[in-house]
């Protein structure tokens, strides 16, 4: 391909023949990158190893060998953390480049092996008893600490997941005790709260200029958890009066954020969740409408959104100017 493009550009006198020779030489001597393949192998390796080890533990829980296996997992986890600490880069408030290509994967392996080991302790010895919250609290603290100290967004995502389960677990049991009602109200509210919390963390870190590049990870979780919780509140709790305004606020917030940062990803998220919410509200409250009205609603609303999406940039430039 590049030969023809080069020839065309030389013919149009846009590239000097010497430059074309230089480029042709570059193209022919360009080394073959095995980056993608090797990264995939690393990732698959970490994943398979943990899935395998996790199931081996549960299958051998009563046999003699399980102490040896748990010891092995513990040693593996400790070795990974040891490696990560030993070869770490000096701490920085900003982004830090990984010291070695496999560094991130070794750290990830250590974290996942830790989870397997902790799960085993809880299962076998109930070290946390029935305080399941504590079982998720410890990895959460560990993962957040490691993510910030060693600057790793994969571990940060694990930490946010642990935070979500910790909040969910600490809120739900109380409700079981007091109201004998394991309805999703507690979970929905936790989700809304978590979404707000994640957004707040993003803004605090951007304002304080502390690990600003974590924003995308936080906001990604925040957007989906928050808006799905609002939709769940509208649909399964049947409380649209409370949750629909919240959903609108979230959608408007992410529309604003998308415009401020020119992030098309959050634009799409806000539009899709907002559309689902509005459509549900209309269909739920509209009685006596016939099929034609529904179809007309879809035609007009989708047409409007397509118009908005196509003209988004123009809209953006006009208002910012």
């Amino acid at each position, binding site marked *: 391909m590049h030969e023809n493009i080069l020839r065309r550009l030389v013919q149009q006198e846009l590239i000097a023949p010497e430059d074309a020779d230089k480029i042709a030489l570059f193209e022919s001597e360009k080394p073959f990158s095995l980056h993608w393949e090797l990264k995939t192998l690393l990732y698959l390796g970490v994943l398979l190893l943990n899935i395998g080890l996790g199931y081996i533990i549960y299958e051998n829980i009563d046999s003699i060998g399980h102490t040896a296996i748990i010891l092995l997992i513990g040693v593996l986890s400790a070795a990974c953390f040891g490696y990560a600490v030993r070869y770490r880069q000096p701490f920085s408030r900003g982004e830090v480049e990984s010291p070695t290509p496999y560094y991130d994967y070794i750290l990830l392996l250590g974290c996942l092996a830790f989870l397997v080991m902790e799960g085993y302790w809880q299962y076998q010895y109930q070290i946390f008893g029935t305080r399941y919250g504590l079982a998720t609290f410890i990895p959460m603290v560990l993962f957040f600490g490691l993510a910030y100290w060693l600057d790793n967004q994969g571990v940060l995502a694990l930490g946010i997941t642990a935070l979500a389960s910790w909040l969910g677990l600490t809120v739900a049991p109380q409700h079981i005790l007091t109201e004998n009602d394991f309805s999703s109200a507690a979970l929905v509210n936790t989700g809304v709260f978590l979404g707000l919390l994640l957004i707040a963390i993003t803004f605090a870190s951007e304002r304080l200029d502390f690990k600003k590049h974590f924003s995308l990870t936080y906001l990604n979780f925040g957007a989906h958890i928050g808006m799905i919780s609002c939709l769940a509140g509208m649909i399964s709790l049947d409380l649209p009066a409370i949750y629909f305004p919240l959903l609108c606020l979230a959608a408007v917030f992410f529309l604003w954020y998308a415009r401020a940062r020119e992030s098309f990803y959050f634009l799409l998220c806000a539009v899709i969740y907002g559309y689902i919410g509005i459509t549900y509200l209309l269909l739920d409250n509209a009685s006596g409408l016939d099929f034609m009205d529904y179809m007309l609603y879809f035609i007009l609303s989708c047409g409007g959104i397509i118009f908005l*999406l196509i003209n988004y940039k123009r809209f953006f430039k006009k208002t910012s100017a």
Partner: protein
Amino acid sequence: MIAYNQDWLDALAIRDAAGEWHNKGLLSDEKWQAIRARHTPGFYTPNVFVRIGLAIFGLILMLAVMGLAAWISDPESDEGLALFGLFWGAVWLAALEFWAIGSARHYKSGVDDILLYTGIISIITSLCSLLPYDSGALADCLIAWPFLLAGSIRYGDRLMAAATFICSLLIVLLIVNKIPVAALYLLPFAGMAFSATAYYFARYGQRIDGWRHWNGLFATMEILALAAFYASGNYWVVQQVAHDMFDLAQPPMGWFFWSFTFVFPLFCIYRGIAGKDRVLLDTGLAGAGAAIFTFRYYFHVLPWTWAAAIAGAGLFLIAYFSIRYLQKNAGAYTYDADGRKTALQKVEEHLIEQTIAVQTPPASTPVKKESFGGGQFGGGGAGGDF
């Protein structure tokens, strides 16, 4: 032949290649500006997330329009429904041709994609619904094939090309399947012969300058043909087909398919690395994974948990040592995401060597050369910072 403005398609390809050269310092800023000024595509091509959004809402819109039209016109008979689908398929294709591409200048915008898919699917399903119930899959494929092929060629769409390839493969296999007695023996080889032909045609097509607008389609076809070639001879696939369609526990010539299952991926990996062919390499790696799954399906040598743990550790170590090796031995292969530095250094080295050779007495060249070759490439070895 292609619906989109060909000069603009060329401009996109030129900007793509020249932008990369500019990034790597092979083109000066003013030359890059001149190239961009001369080659300006006028397409409307939004960001990928906007493309997804436009496709989703475009689809809902089209379905609602068809729903409304069906509610008003109320086609009752089977023929009426088929005519209805044909009409709307034609409407969407006309909208694609004259509005989206012709006047609105959409290209990979989500709108043109979804108009094409909805139009072609409406037409094919309407035509197939007219067939009698017992007509079978071959008739459906034969009806779909010309539309899929025409859609691929006219709109240069990769998904359409993939559908055309799968449809063609099905046609070949379904015809071979009708041969009495010999079908069992012929099916795997028919699949392999067809895929091999498609593979070489795809590679040939990518070299033809006049077919450059369909380059992506041929690349898609190359990957699919290689995957289909391996699947045709994989023991698990052959055994399942023999069992389901011919009631045989074991396919004939099992030894051949067993050896093919293992040898072909290894051959692909070897050829991929030696020939610097990413499609061969990646297919070979995926095929090697499939070969292991095939083996474990028939022989339970290890519990799957141990197999997963050992395989995981093995993969991790292979990747670990490969990366270490590549970092210490810079050469034709690299772990760098796009190898720009080493290649650029090489070019510079080459040019400096040439200019030095021209300008200075040859005696000084070896001295100069020493400082460019070799060098420190520490990477992540032992040592560390304490």
